[in-house]
């Protein structure tokens, strides 16, 4: 336990001093700000463009829902990309540089490394995401007061859960390949496969990537929580399995 606390402390210090924390928080803050602003300004910008002969594009009036639409679009794509790039080297860099050898030969258990890294990354991700969400929520309420969101907790939670899945995937890839690019490629590979599977509507109910792309439908009450329940369970189970697999592989890996 003592080693776990010490290593976790080191992880947070590292995130702070290598600017990982600041970059992640800044990116998510920006995405949170941009969502309501884009929703508000896009119809006005588009409406002001004269296509010639007095033809204008008319967009439906912006609403709170268009702000959340932007939010899910930004976080689900750019946010996840930022997450992947920030945490791609989390495990991989330690292995490729050999910085763990001094600590492991002092008797630190290998699972401590994985669990501690997963915890730190989860906290950073949750914090940045909460920041983004809070900012977007405040601005959305300011521009379009009085709106009601259905299934809000579940919709926002699902995006967070998908982020957890990616973190577990990155750590597993890092342990497996031992370098930054392997970890990154592995993660992108899985995302591409999952996105391809999403082309089949019948599968989307079970597909973790629905949690990042489609749970907006929960907010607008077009879908119900039960529609995504299998995807929730599969995503959470997959994340847990990946962490367990990362520990198992790391225990048998030469360092």
């Amino acid at each position, binding site marked *: 336990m*003592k*080693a776990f*606390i*010490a*290593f976790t*402390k*080191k992880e947070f*210090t*590292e995130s702070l*001093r*290598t600017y990982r924390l600041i970059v992640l928080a800044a990116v998510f803050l920006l995405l949170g700000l941009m969502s309501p602003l884009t929703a508000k300004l896009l119809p006005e910008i588009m409406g002001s463009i004269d296509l010639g002969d007095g033809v204008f594009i008319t967009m439906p009036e912006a609403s709170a829902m268009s702000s959340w639409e932007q939010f899910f679009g930004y976080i689900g794509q750019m946010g996840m990309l930022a997450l992947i790039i920030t945490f791609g080297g989390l495990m991989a860099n330690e292995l490729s*540089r*050999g*910085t763990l*050898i*001094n*600590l*492991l*030969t*002092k*008797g*630190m*258990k*290998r699972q401590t490394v994985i669990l501690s890294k997963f915890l730190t990354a989860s906290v950073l991700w949750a914090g940045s995401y909460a920041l983004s969400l809070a900012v977007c929520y405040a601005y959305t309420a300011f521009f379009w007061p009085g709106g009601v969101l259905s299934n809000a907790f579940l919709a926002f939670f699902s995006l967070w859960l998908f982020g957890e899945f990616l973190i577990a995937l990155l750590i597993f890839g890092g342990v497996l390949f031992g370098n930054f690019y392997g970890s990154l490629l592995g993660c992108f590979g899985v995302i591409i496969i999952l996105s391809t599977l999403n082309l089949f509507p019948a599968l989307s109910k079970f597909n973790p990537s629905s949690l990042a792309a489609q749970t907006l439908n929960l907010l607008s009450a077009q879908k119900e929580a039960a529609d995504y329940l299998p995807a929730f369970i599969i995503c959470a189970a997959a994340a847990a399995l990946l962490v367990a697999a990362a520990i198992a592989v790391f*225990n*048998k890996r*030469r*360092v």
Partner: protein
Amino acid sequence: MNTLSVKNLSKSFGVNKVIDGISFDVPEGSVFGFIGANGAGKTTTMKMILGLLPADGGEIFVRGERVCFGATETNRHIGYLPDVPEFYGYMKPKEYLLLCGEVAGLAASETARRSIRLLEMVGLSNANKKIGAFSRGMKQRLGVAQALLNEPKLLICDEPTSALDPMGRKEVLDILKQIKGKTTVVFSTHILSDVERVCDRVAVLSGGRIALCGTLSELRARHKADSVLIEFASQANKARFTADAGALLKNAVSADLELTLHVADIANAHREILRVLYANEIMPLKLEILEPTMESLYLEVAK
């Protein structure tokens, strides 16, 4: 008691058999030199002792406890200095040692006390900058400090001096000399003069096997002296000597004013040399029976 015991250890990478059934013991308190060419398997052996690599066959015991790959209980007895120690560049030396102490389960106050002493010993007391800005020699010395932090019974150093300049080498060797007696040291190297400076026991690894193993004095005695070096004051003296020396010159090596004679019976040869010198009234600058050096022993077994 043996601090480290390696029994019949073997390891292959693919079809390449790197370690082929080696056995050796390291008694408590000794400084053990592990010698071999680049790629001979020194690092592989050390990593197996630390449980960082699985062995294909054989057993390793540290203070009587068996080493298992992966979760390595025996590492609590061991301090390890990798060939190129890597640190977190954003930390300062004291912070890094504090992390090491916490990981090893030491109390913070104890870690702080030991850190001050160790940093002083390795000459980094005043290096209060981030490790990222350290030179290679400084990193190596910090590596020694972190390896000694948990006061290990066994210190394993992987080529601690090979990448350092002469000053850095001397400093690291001096540190090893300082801890001699308190801690058992195993260190690998291919610099033979380092071995002669600090080791009392050696093993030479060649072709995946132990080609030579024992204390330095044992090895010297076993490969007994059979060479005599004579240095002459002038070429004329040397010429007069060679004209009269006869059978002595059978395996002689001549260089400038020196003559090295390789003989079968050193006592007889010595008598004969003195006779020739006396008879020809030659006063040599130097007459020396050559001790077998680590280099000659090494070259003999690593052929």
